[in-house]
């Protein structure tokens, strides 16, 4: 157990940062993998790219939902409400909804090529919205999240050295875990579509 600075009514709940933040880093990585594969699919029409894009988006949503729920619990006992009027929480909910719509959109197609093409285009739009929604807008307005209306928390002076020491390995670890789950899912999907992909 390391010493964390005790500020305001956060108390020892401040340790939640070691789990709450890596969820988002992992989600960003997975959504980036997803959009790269979607663009790649549009360029090559290779269905294996679509399998990768949808798998990483699915695991990305898992990490996003985990990040959202952990934030909800944390907010309940520090901000005084599960869903408060915080811009970052609201925009994140919107961004996650867009990605869930991507997964639902995929289920509505029976034709594989049509599904891949339409969802790849949707994915590009979703990613184009994700970054401003979760990264830019919350920094332009007042927020309950630390580091808002200034530079990102972990690169500025706001974060204590002891916290950073744990956070960076945690980012790497959770991101690798996310990528591993994504490869498992992609391998499963490739097996399902084995006859089509290699036929």
């Amino acid at each position, binding site marked *: 157990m390391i010493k964390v600075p005790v500020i305001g009514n956060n108390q020892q*709940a401040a340790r939640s940062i070691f789990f709450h933040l890596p969820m988002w880093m992992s989600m960003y990585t997975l959504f980036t993998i997803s959009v790269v594969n979607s663009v790649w699919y549009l360029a090559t029409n290779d269905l294996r790219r679509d399998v990768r894009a949808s798998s990483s988006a699915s695991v990305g949503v898992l990490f996003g939902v*985990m990040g959202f729920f952990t934030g909800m619990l944390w907010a309940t006992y520090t*901000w*005084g409400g599960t869903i408060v009027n915080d811009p970052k929480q609201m925009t994140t*909910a919107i961004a996650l909804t867009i990605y869930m719509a991507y997964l639902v959109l995929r*289920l509505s197609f029976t034709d594989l090529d049509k599904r891949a093409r339409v969802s790849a285009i949707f994915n590009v739009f979703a990613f184009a919205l994700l970054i401003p929604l979760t990264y830019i807008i919350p920094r332009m307005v007042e927020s309950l999240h630390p580091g808002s209306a200034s530079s990102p928390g972990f690169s500025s002076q706001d974060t204590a050295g002891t916290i950073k020491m744990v956070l960076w390995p945690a980012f790497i670890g959770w991101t690798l875990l996310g990528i591993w789950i994504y490869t498992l899912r992609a391998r499963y999907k490739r097996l399902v579509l084995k006859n089509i992909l290699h036929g």
Partner: protein
Amino acid sequence: MAKRLSYLLLVCLMLPITAAIAQATDTARVVNEVVQQQNTETGPVNEFFRSNNKIYVAVGILVIIFTCIILYLVRLDRRIGKLEKEN
């Protein structure tokens, strides 16, 4: 099953958005008031999470993450099992 679950999650996330947009008020002031009110609130759950300097909030967060990952992996496991039976 997967379809139904996705719809459910979608609705669950859309509710807080609409609720948050509906109550557009001065954030910091309202939160301060609510925090003050909640700090004096009692109840078994509230007392548990606030005991020992709120360390159980961090514990609760770990439980959420663990549960979510396990649920996701169990679902994946079931699908792979189904695939194995088909072949």
